[in-house]
């Protein structure tokens, strides 16, 4: 059975070996420092690892490492990064924690006296930076560049500038990406951007040189209550563009991808969801439904929704909107216990994640504690399919290599003994 077949069985909710994902998306990856450590551990050729996603500083999972980790998935990424520059023209960069990595040509940083790093949108050092990594940090956060808000002049078009029809450069990129994965024995996840509604990582527009509209995170959340018409207008425009772009992408990708990453908007905090069910129904569901309906009517793809946090009260709505897959399944959040989720939603939703807790057990537990939790989650989530193993969100910096290896070995043992 190929990796792709393993994933497809799981997506069809059929029993079988548990497929694994490390690195097919920007929310199922591994920090570049851990990628280098894993390459070292598995005795793979040494070289500076590429930072394929500079916002979270995710490292490229090359084919050899994917094999060592037992990953069954791969991804086709966007043409540009979260900071608006293309993922090409690689050069070396020494990180604040002393690691030599490869970054794209457009990755241009400046340091301040304290060693904090500032990254520039589209690689343009003549505009204010849009990313900030503290000297003791391991990834970037968006710098809020909110112009003063004049309620009378707020124009939803200002929050729509990032939602544009695909360009010829985009089409060429996607053709090349699809050609790259064509014939892969791994399952392929793709995403074209612009289908995530109100993703708070994207609201500040770290890829824009001069973002306008509502770009402050708090201001955006306030807008969900006080400026709902504005948000509807943004989402409506965004959805129309996204559907056009998906049609183009479908012509290029066809059945060469299996899963479409739709949206990374977080609907949960550690203890509760981010919005009421009524708000979800009014503000998000109509657009999600349009995207998912189109995908299911015109392609064979399964749709992937990422949302951190305690969002159990919203999961029925997620299913009703047509999503097939939920990630990262944050079992450490309130109400998100694995067994309960599997019992209540497991026949209708694929859990792509939930494999091990990245807040406590994976970074701070012992290898045996990691193995125990991984085995427990495999036993809970795998019956009847509907489970793709992934950690709960990306593996973070400072996670002990021994713990990651313990996780990989536990998955291998589980699958070797037939589940």
């Amino acid at each position, binding site marked *: 059975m190929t990796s792709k077949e393993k994933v497809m069985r799981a997506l069809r909710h059929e029993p079988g070996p548990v497929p694994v994902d490390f690195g097919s998306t920007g929310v199922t990856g591994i920090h570049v420092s851990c990628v280098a450590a894993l390459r070292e551990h598995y005795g793979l050729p040494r070289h500076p690892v590429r930072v394929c996603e500079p916002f979270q500083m995710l490292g490229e999972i090359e084919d050899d490492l994917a094999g060592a980790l037992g990953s069954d998935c791969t991804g086709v990424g966007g043409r540009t990064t979260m900071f608006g520059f293309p993922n090409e023209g690689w050069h070396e960069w020494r990180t604040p924690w002393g690691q030599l990595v490869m970054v794209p040509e457009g990755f241009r940083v400046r340091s301040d006296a304290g060693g904090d790093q500032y990254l520039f949108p589209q690689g343009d050092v003549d505009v204010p930076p849009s990313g900030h990594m503290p000297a003791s940090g391991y990834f970037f956060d968006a710098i809020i560049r909110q112009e003063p808000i004049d309620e009378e002049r707020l124009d939803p078009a200002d929050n729509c500038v990032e939602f544009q029809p695909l360009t010829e450069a985009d089409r060429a990129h996607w053709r090349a990406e699809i050609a790259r994965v064509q014939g892969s024995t791994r399952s392929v996840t793709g995403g074209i951007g612009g289908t995530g509604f109100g993703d708070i990582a994207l609201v500040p527009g770290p890829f824009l040189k001069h973002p306008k509209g509502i770009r402050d995170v708090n201001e955006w959340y306030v807008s969900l209550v*006080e400026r709902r018409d504005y948000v509807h207008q943004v989402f409506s425009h965004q959805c129309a563009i996204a559907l056009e772009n998906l049609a183009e992408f479908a012509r290029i990708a066809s059945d060469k991808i299996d899963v479409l990453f739709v949206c990374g908007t977080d609907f949960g905090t550690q203890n509760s969801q981010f919005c009421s069910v009524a708000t979800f129904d009014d503000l998000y569901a109509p657009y999600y439904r349009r995207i998912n309906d189109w995908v299911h009517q015109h392609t064979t793809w399964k749709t992937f929704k990422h949302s951190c946090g305690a969002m159990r009260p919203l999961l029925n709505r997620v299913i009703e909107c047509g999503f097939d897959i939920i990630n990262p399944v944050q079992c450490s959040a309130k109400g998100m216990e694995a067994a309960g989720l599997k019992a209540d939603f497991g026949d209708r939703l694929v859990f792509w994640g939930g494999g091990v807790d990245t807040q406590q057990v994976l970074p701070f537990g012992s290898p045996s504690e990691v193995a125990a939790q991984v085995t427990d989650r495999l036993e809970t989530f795998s019956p009847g399919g509907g489970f793709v193993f992934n950690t709960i969100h990306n593996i973070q910096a400072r996670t002990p290599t021994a713990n990651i290896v313990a996780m990989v070995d536990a998955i291998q043992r589980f699958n070797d003994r037939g589940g």
Partner: protein
Amino acid sequence: MPQLPELTAALAAGKRAETTRLTQELLAAGVAPQSIIEDGLVPGMALIGEQFKRNEIFVPEMLVAARAMKEALKFLEPLLAQAGIKPKYTAVIGTVRGDLHDIGKNLVSTMWRGANFAVVDLGTNVAPERYVAAAKEHGAQIVGLSALLTTTMPAMKETVATLREANLPGVKILVGGAPITQLFADEIGADGYAADAGTAVDVARRLVGDAA
């Protein structure tokens, strides 16, 4: 003349314009600023905190209420300062070094202000020594540490150790943030842990011996 319960209700409903208008009308009618805060705004924020704890409202509604209170306080704080009236307790708060996340920290800050604590907000990426200096300078009874990231949990531990070494009598340390647990708080020697912004008020009050 409007009544204080109207102000409480307006704030609890997140009605910014109405909260501001009622505050101004109450002032114009001669109600003492301290009473407007303690008998109008503080109960309103307490209601908000309770609703948040019960998952009846969520972060966006909290932020809206926080703005309403902040706008009302703009009218009241200068008058209190003129009269030399200060809140009974002072808290210093910040997100620990290496961590730039502030939504949770801001919510706690707002809820503490809403409970009539003076709050000195140090922002994000705060070095341990800055907490110590601010606690000394402002005579704080509470120091609040926030961290969203697993990678910055060690910085929280380091900050608690630095505060302990500084030997600040009467200062209680309260920690919180997504990956933080009561167990971790105990391990690093914090005095209190709050899972959410509403609870942070209860814990802070308990720590200063002012439990409601």
